């Protein structure tokens, strides 16, 4: 019997290695906060963190950054006065700023087997400096590569033992695409449901993308 549930956060995060690329969803909500706290406790270092935003002064992203175990941050948005902004200014953090739609598309590309793609986003800007471009149908485009995760930490509202997930409202955000893009996809779910309880037409993230699930009731 397939059963992707693990008993606790430590089991969920076992084996995450130094140097891993960690995909972390969240956009105001939908961030796997308990797993993120667990990752700090787990101790992996030299991480590349892929996340929408560098976060504010406080909160889980700031805590992880403050732990000093993130070598590189890949995101669309960093405030100068945030922990990320200060670490970058101090030369302690590598930063790759990616337009948000390109970030989402690069993550989806990793999950979908697309090896590279051309997009007009960011062409003709300083983000394009030194990068490969091509004019397609009269539009200047940048060549973008997939972002593969070693680990994705995912937040869910419901999960069953095959790892089928639902997400609440806009808490869906990056969760389904990051689940697709990692070698190891670990989920924290608010609710556990029986196999078949999620209607087959309304699964938001199919279990094929999920490897471990831990139940975090609240």
């Amino acid at each position, binding site marked *: 019997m397939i059963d992707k549930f693990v008993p606790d956060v430590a089991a969920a995060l076992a084996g995450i290695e130094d140097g891993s690329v960690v995909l972390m969803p969240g956009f*105001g909500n939908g961030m796997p906060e308990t797993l993120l706290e667990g990752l700090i406790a787990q101790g992996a270092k030299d991480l590349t963190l892929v996340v929408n935003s560098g976060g504010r002064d406080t909160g889980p992203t700031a805590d992880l950054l403050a732990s000093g175990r993130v070598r590189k941050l890949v995101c669309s948005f960093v405030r100068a006065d945030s922990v990320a902004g200060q670490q*970058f200014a101090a030369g302690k953090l590598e930063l790759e700023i990616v337009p948000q*739609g390109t970030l*989402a*598309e690069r993550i989806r590309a990793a999950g979908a087997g697309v090896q590279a793609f051309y997009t007009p986003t960011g062409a003709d800007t300083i983000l394009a400096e030194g990068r490969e471009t091509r004019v397609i149908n009269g539009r200047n485009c940048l060549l973008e590569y997939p972002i593969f995760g070693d680990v994705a930490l995912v937040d869910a509202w419901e999960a069953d033992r095959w790892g089928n997930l639902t997400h609440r409202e*806009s808490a869906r955000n990056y969760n389904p*695409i990051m689940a697709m893009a990692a070698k190891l996809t670990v989920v924290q779910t608010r609710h556990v449901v029986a196999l078949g309880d999620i209607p087959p037409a309304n699964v938001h993230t199919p279990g094929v993308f999920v490897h471990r699930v831990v139940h975090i009731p609240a």
Partner: protein
Amino acid sequence: MTFKPLDRVGIAARIARDIPEGWFVNLGIGIPTGVSDHVPVDREVIFHSENGVIGAGPAPEPDKINPYLVNAGTQHITLRTGGSFVHHADSFAIARGGHLDLCVLGAFEVAENGDIANWARKADDPTKQVGGAMDLAIGAKRLWVAMEHNTKGSGESRIRRACSYPLTAKGVVKRVYTDIAVLEVADRGFVVLDMVEGLTRRELQERSEAELYWA
């Protein structure tokens, strides 16, 4: 000077007047966020938010906040009847795939060739706030900009022959709504569509670095 510039709310309201029923619209952070407050409820305009919200509605009553529902500014919102949710890649497929009738962004500067600069003040700006602006700018069917005509301190014009700040995208702005005028970006440059009452053509040109044309 006998004219009265619009305040930020006034700019948002002016933009709302020009959005017809049925348009699918993304509003950037800043002045644009206020546009939706000025679209009458009986005029169905569908607002998109980058984080996967289609049909974003107004802020909820304080006792009815849904913590799972925010807009691209991470403010609590409601969902209109008929709205739906998609994931981030599908949401940006909407933005980048040409499915938005309109995107309204704030900006530091707009140039007469339609260039927009709205995310950094210099190449090594310590603030790296590109967010989704570059995707929206290249993807929407129409890009309108909402901004003050001149900077607050030195009064420098944001209506430029060429942008001096790092670009968000090249040649994409169709229209600019400022506190004193509405400008169309045409082949020949900025064409004035509207001005606040009492402002003269000469006064508007004095406040604009780029050359202005009249429709």
